[in-house]
């Protein structure tokens, strides 16, 4: 029942009171609509004046560049600060912890508003020891370190209107219904909204004064009980300031409990190190120091929090053009990971058998080290002819050979979810191989501020049960959802009489805590961190807290009654102590400017400190390939995009296609085609997965290359109180997790159901007919050209030649570009290369493009319709041995599956097919060779998209970007959110497209123009090579993308264009793309080559055919003006 609508704004007081007593959810909803709160309706809730204040404040410290942060400076500009040019971005170095990773970022701030993050290129921990890729050593100019997608997406979370904007005091009694709900009952999607409303509305808002009162009252209470009965739940952190504050708190209240929460506890790793006598050690790798990398169920380049850094290091070893050699990556894993797809050789093995594999590798290494170290392996039979068991054996022999041959320059990594025994074994093997201190780094992270002796959540729950906890301070991010459900942390927290939660959102934890205070985003607060290289960095606020949040430092200091003169002072004190006692103002400003302290804070641990002799060996059991009921295994792994689920309300990440499955907005049970066929599972139907008597229905997704009998599912989905984006997306599998136990389960049963479930993928492989699959297999080698390192060394130009068209491409008329090149040789001609040998398909570029170019999020329904808007996508193809697959069980069991990925955006064809068919000339060529879009002129015939062979054009079927899309929200309520987020996170340099308009990659034309303006202002107008970087290029951790001027033969891109590996995709269409790819190489050991790799297609001899001799033509540029322009296939050069 709604109160009479006619009351409107002048609603009478008593109406509100009566209904308030009833506290019906629909009334609450009505109230929210009638009196919009800042939290739910932002940005409308923030007045123009308040916004100006915020902007003004951020601008003032932006201009001061020392970033002094005084609360008093809340005035809008009356006079512009010196040196500030409106519309010109400023950049700030900052470091913060985000979803388990440490981000060293350079933040783009435009008129006081942070809009984009990229990796801090000067940060020493991102340096790699790489061979020079350039003859003239121009690395410095091109220094790009990249940043992973999750870190980049933090900027969207900053502007998330769903973030908690006001402190909430909950009623002591939460409705029984919601209690049951939070305990996991009734988790069907229909009840989500109703329940969320109840939980959200069961509290009253608190004003800032009340919050201050609350904090001081709580502080007194803690003081009066001397901390006994008080627990502080914090998330594991590297922040020295946080650790110092915790130590101070602990010192003051020794009876207070410190509870450490780790969303993905690396507990097996930590347990292993503990048992080896290094409890505070931290394990990390240097991939650039390894020639041979063996990843055993370890997704080093994908879900690992340090993946971007590892990818950066990995790519340093992928430059065969200058060095003639490459590192070698073996991946042995159950699910197909990013690492697996980047690997030179991959073997699917169940996660539970990884220990056995490792034990056998160690035995083989031992045998070699004792005997003939370089004894060749028996490779008489081709690898493809071997049985599974023989394949495993040969793989192990090959790995052992490589490891021993590269002693001290190799690396054996084991996934953090593997048991401690396996971790210990890996450490011992690495030690034997002399890798410790080289590619395997162990550093000691003692708490220099004092021992904290934290307990874990399980113990905390036990203490609560024993009624020993009266007060809980929750500083960790949503442990009620992230922690294993079997802990019943909900009930435990709910039972505590006084609990304060520092929350990002009104989430699952907020629902069970008494007081919920809004937290500041890392870009709004002072913080610090130390990364595994021991480098200290400060996190500085880029903007005043938009929604009035506070940081954990501020809250804990307040509650602990610890002298605290503002977070900045506190962090600076910490920094000063770490820097050796004192930091002058100038030094402090320097630290903020560069973002790091050049001083290693963490000592390395060497072999001698580890008790490796005591490591027990694992008895290698037989390695199974069993997909019968009850013998299955289930592996729960972190989400590629949502981490532990805390990023569920980030629409960019929800819509980011998962690297291998290309799934968006969902998680699914991944199974191999054969396992699916054995169990009768169908893609797109749900299946009941049962572990330890607890069953969850999950949609099935078939992934070729998944280990037989192994089911993988991502956690982090199925949030029931995430916000308007993430609530109810996907399936919650935390019910299976057990505290202190690895997320690998055996004895799993799976039964198919007939319930269809719609999964939204951006690519539909293996859901298509057999003819289609054959065609894909036939076509992909020409699209994504790939060879082995061996092949490359014999025929460096195999890629352009193998699949070169049999006819010569000749235009019937003169191309306009020819004239431009002839008459205006001074004009730059832009082009791009993408090195597939470096690309690992990590998605960083996709997200960077989305952030840079205001690419809208469209929601699950629209993705399922094939209307995703990403300008840059990563195509992923499965490849298999077609002949053997056809002889065998067909596509129910494809043989020798591999994955290739290929980023595809507009390739800016010189003779662009899209331009010729546009009736209104809305897409035209610039004189600099960019295929430009005039959005204002576009009327949306979509003919250009039909005629684009790469299908890189994206159409706005609805008004994705503004709120004016009438009726639009009907399809999917989630989509509405996007409209509000976008308005603040938008890049003002790029036009926001309305509905009915075509859009696509522009080579970041705004950056090109800015670069040109700068070149004109500061020099002779010539743009220096590397001065203009596209957003994707900047974000790429492996430097696979290079952009620049093709008309200048000295540029990096021009050099790469003439690389023998360079080829144009679909060159036979004579469209002359300006983006070329460099062929991928796999450094496969001889004995492990599959049939395709062992017998690569022959290079046809085209004799004097002029069309293909162009690569030689590049050496003598001086002869003609436009020799370097992309003429990879024309007859002209």
């Amino acid at each position, binding site marked *: 029942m709604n109160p009479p609508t006619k009351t409107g704004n002048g609603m009478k007081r008593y109406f509100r009171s009566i209904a308030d007593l009833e506290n019906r959810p629909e009334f609450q909803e009505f109230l929210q609509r009638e009196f919009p709160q800042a939290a739910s309706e932002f940005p409308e809730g923030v007045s123009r004046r308040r916004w100006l204040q915020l902007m003004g404040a951020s601008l003032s410290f932006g201009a001061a560049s020392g970033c002094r942060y005084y609360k008093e400076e809340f005035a809008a500009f009356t006079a512009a600060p010196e040196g500030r040019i409106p519309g010109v971005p400023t950049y700030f170095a900052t470091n913060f912890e985000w979803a388990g990773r440490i981000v060293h970022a350079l933040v783009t701030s435009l008129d006081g508003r942070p809009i984009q993050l990229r990796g801090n290129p000067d940060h020493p921990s991102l340096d790699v020891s790489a061979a020079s890729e350039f003859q003239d050593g121009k690395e410095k100019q091109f220094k790009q370190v990249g940043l992973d997608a999750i870190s980049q997406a933090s900027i969207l979370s900053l502007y998330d209107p769903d973030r908690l904007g006001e402190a909430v005091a909950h009623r002591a009694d939460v409705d029984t219904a919601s209690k049951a709900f939070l305990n996991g009952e009734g988790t069907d999607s229909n009840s989500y909204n109703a329940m969320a409303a109840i939980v959200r509305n069961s509290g009253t808002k608190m004003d800032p004064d009340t919050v201050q009162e609350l904090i001081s009252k709580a502080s007194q209470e803690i003081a009066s009980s001397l901390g006994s009965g008080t627990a502080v739940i914090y998330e594991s952190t590297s922040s020295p300031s946080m650790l110092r504050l915790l130590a101070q708190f602990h010192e003051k209240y020794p009876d207070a409990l410190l509870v450490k929460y780790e969303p993905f506890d690396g507990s097996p790793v930590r347990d292993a190190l503990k048992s080896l006598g290094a409890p505070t050690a931290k394990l990390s790798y240097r991939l650039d120091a390894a020639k041979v990398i063996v990843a055993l169920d370890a997704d080093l380049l994908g879900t690992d929090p340090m993946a971007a850094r590892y990818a950066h290091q990995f790519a340093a070893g992928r430059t065969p053009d200058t060095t003639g050699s490459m590192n070698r990556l073996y991946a042995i894993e159950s699910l197909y990971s990013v690492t697996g797809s980047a690997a030179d050789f991959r073997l699917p093995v169940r996660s539970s058998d990884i220990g056995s594999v490792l034990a056998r590798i160690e035995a083989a290494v031992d045998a070699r080290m004792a005997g003939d170290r370089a004894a060749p392996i028996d490779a008489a039979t081709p690898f493809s002819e071997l049985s599974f068991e023989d394949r495993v054996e040969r793989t192990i022999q090959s790995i052992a050979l490589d490891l021993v041959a590269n002693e001290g320059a190799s690396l054996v990594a084991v996934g953090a979810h593997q048991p401690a025994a396996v971790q210990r074994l890996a450490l011992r093997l690495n030690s034997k191989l002399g890798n410790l201190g080289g590619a395997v780094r162990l550093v000691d992270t003692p708490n220099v501020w004092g021992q904290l002796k934290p307990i874990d959540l399980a113990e905390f729950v036990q203490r609560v049960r024993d009624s020993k906890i009266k007060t809980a301070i929750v500083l960790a991010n949503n442990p009620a959802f992230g922690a294993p459900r079997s802990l019943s942390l909900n009930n435990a927290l709910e039972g505590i009489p006084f609990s304060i939660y520092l929350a990002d959102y009104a989430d699952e934890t907020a629902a069970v805590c008494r007081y919920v205070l809004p937290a500041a985003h890392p870009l709004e607060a002072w913080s610090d961190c130390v990364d595994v290289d021991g480098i200290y960095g400060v996190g500085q606020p880029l903007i005043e807290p938009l929604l009035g949040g506070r940081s954990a430092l501020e809250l804990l200091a307040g509650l602990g009654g610890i002298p605290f003169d503002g977070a900045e002072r506190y962090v600076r004190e910490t920094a000063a102590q770490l820097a050796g006692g004192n930091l002058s103002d100038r030094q402090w400003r320097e630290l903020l400017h560069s973002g790091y302290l050049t001083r290693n804070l963490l000592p390395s641990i060497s072999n001698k400190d580890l008790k490796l002799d005591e490591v027990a060996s694992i008895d290698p059991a037989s390695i199974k390939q069993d997909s019968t009921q009850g013998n299955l295994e289930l592996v729960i792994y972190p989400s590629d995009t949502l981490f532990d689920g805390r990023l569920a309300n980030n629409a960019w990440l929800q819509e980011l296609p998962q690297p291998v499955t290309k799934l968006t907005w969902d998680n699914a049970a991944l199974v191999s085609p054969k396992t699916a066929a054995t169990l009768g599972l169908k893609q797109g139907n749900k299946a009941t997965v049962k572990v330890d008597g607890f069953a969850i229905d999950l949609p099935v997704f078939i992934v070729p290359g998944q280990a037989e009998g192994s089911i993988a599912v991502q956690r982090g989905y199925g949030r029931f109180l995430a916000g308007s984006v993430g609530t109810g997306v996907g399936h919650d599998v935390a019910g299976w997790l057990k505290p202190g136990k690895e997320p690998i389960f055996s004895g799993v049963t799976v039964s198919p159901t007939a319930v269809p479930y719609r999964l939204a993928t951006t690519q539909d492989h293996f859901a298509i007919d057999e003819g289609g699959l054959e065609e894909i297999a036939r076509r992909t080698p020409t699209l994504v050209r790939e060879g082995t390192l061996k092949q490359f060394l014999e025929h460096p130009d195999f890629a352009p030649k193998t699949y070169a068209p049999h006819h010569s491409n000749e235009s019937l008329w003169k191309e306009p570009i020819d004239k431009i090149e002839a008459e205006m040789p001074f004009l730059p001609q832009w082009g791009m290369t993408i090195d597939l040998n470096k690309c690992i398909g990590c998605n960083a570029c996709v997200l960077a493009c989305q952030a840079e170019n205001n690419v809208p999020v469209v929601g699950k329904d629209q993705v399922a319709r094939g209307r995703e808007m990403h300008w840059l996508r990563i195509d992923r193809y499965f490849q298999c041995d077609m002949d053997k697959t056809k002889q065998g069980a067909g596509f129910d069991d494809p043989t020798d599956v591999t994955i290739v990925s290929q980023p*595809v955006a507009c390739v800016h064809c010189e003779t662009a097919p899209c331009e010729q068919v546009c009736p209104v000339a809305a897409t035209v060529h610039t004189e600099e060779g960019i295929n430009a879009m005039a959005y204002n*002129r576009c009327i949306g015939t979509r003919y250009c998209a039909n005629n684009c062979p790469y299908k890189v054009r994206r159409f706005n079927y609805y008004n994705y970007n503004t709120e004016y899309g009438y009726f639009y929200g009907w399809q999917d309520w989630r989509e509405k959110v996007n409209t509000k987020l976008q308005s603040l996170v938008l890049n003002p340099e790029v036009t926001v497209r309305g509905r009915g308009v075509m859009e696509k990659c522009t080579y970041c034309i705004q950056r090109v123009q800015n670069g040109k303006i700068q070149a004109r202002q500061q020099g002779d107008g010539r743009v220096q090579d590397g001065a203009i970087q596209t957003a994707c290029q900047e974000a790429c951790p492996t430097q696979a993308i290079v952009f620049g001027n093709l008309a200048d033969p000295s540029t990096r891109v021009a050099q790469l264009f003439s690389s023998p590996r360079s080829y144009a995709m679909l060159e036979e269409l004579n469209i002359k793309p300006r983006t070329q790819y460099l062929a991928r190489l796999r450094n496969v050991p001889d004995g492990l080559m599959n049939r395709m790799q062992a017998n690569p297609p022959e290079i046809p001899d085209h004799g004097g055919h002029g069309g293909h001799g162009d690569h030689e033509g590049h050496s003598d540029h001086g002869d003609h003006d436009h020799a370097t322009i992309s003429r990879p296939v024309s007859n002209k050069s």
Partner: protein
Amino acid sequence: MFATNADSQVLSTEIDNTEETPGRRAPLVTGNHTYHTITETVCRVAEQPQPKLWYLLFAVSSSLALMFVLLIGYLFYTGVGVWGNMSPVFWAWPIVNFVFWVGIGHAGTLISAILFLFRQNWRTSINRAAEAMTIFAVICAGIFPGIHVGRAWLAFWLTPYPSLNLWMWPQFRSPLLWDVFAVGTYASVSLVFWYMGMIPDLATFRDRSKHWLPRMVYGILSLGWNGSSRQWLRYEKAYTLLAALAAPLVLSVHTVVSFDFAVSQLPGWHTTIFPPYFVAGAIFSGFAMVLTLLVPMRKIYRLENLITLRHLENMCKIILATGTLVGLAYATEFFIAWYSKNPYESYTFMNRAFGPYWWAYWIMVSCNVISPQLFWFKKFRSTPFLMVIVSIFVNIGMWFERFVITVTSLSRDFLPSSWGYYSPTWVDISMLIGSFGIFFTLFLLFCRFLPVVAMSEVKGILAIQNHGHHTDHH
């Protein structure tokens, strides 16, 4: 109930004039018709109260037309996302419908212009209705590309108009622009041709009107026609000139429509056979639609002696011929796909026949290639009921032909990563139905208010027939 002939001397039964008698031309008007009875028969279609069936049909089709208009409103309000169009199938049902209706709109001008120039006298009984059908089909066709663009309110940018604030013309290399000219010219010439041919008959209507309002309206429309020799002379000249002008349009319009596809580089679209193949298909579908409309119309309005079995049979023969041409075109496409060794093209055609849209392909083949072959049998050519069934099949088949060309080619082009499967939404389906509503509403109004048979021209061939022995030996 039904309109009946007042004059008893006119036979109202069906007369089979399809028999070929050597040395003698078959009569084109049967049943002892005279000038007067022809006037009576045709005028009463509009003058007499319409049968209940007309009201029923009109109620249904005008409701569907209204639905169509409302859906266009919904579309404009919301965005083209209400359709199933997606990436890679950026063009789907709306374009299929456009090409389908343009194709239908072919028969009218072919009958009126080309058959006129070739002195095919049997055209006279059917040309008026066929031309009307053409106009209405072109109206239906014209709606779709207009509403199909993402920003329909700016669709006028497709036309070349001097604009002071833009300083630019459309892009003349785009086939879509050629389309605007081709369809625009075709629609205007067809309309003028149709209207001009109607002037003498409108004057007849004017003269027979008993009420002042129709007299005034028909009076204005007949432009002061008084039947003087001078008027007839000029009329005949103008008509011949217009026919000569319209004749190339019959070939040009669908040729240009086919360029929308053929000029692109999409496998399955980029084929040189498209212009003749599209024209043949258009004539094929146009005649099928004429048959579908005329068989019930001559029955309801008792026009069997004007639109005789022989007329229908002739149309069946054209359908048979063009249907076979279309079948040949399908086979040629496959041959070329194989012969050219272009891997993308060969896959596209294999995919059409055996891919996920195999059903659409085989519906097309069975309707377009197999069903017209039934017209080899005299029985099918001379039984109106069977003709209608076959022609409806042909119409279904021709819609699917456009679906197959447009959607299956787009759904799987060069990069397999971008392949997709298109399925329509309720809006797509309703709009197709709604366009039929528009079409039938207009046609029913035509029956109600305008001369459905060109009286003056039929009278002309009646004269030839009655004085056959004079003219035969010239």
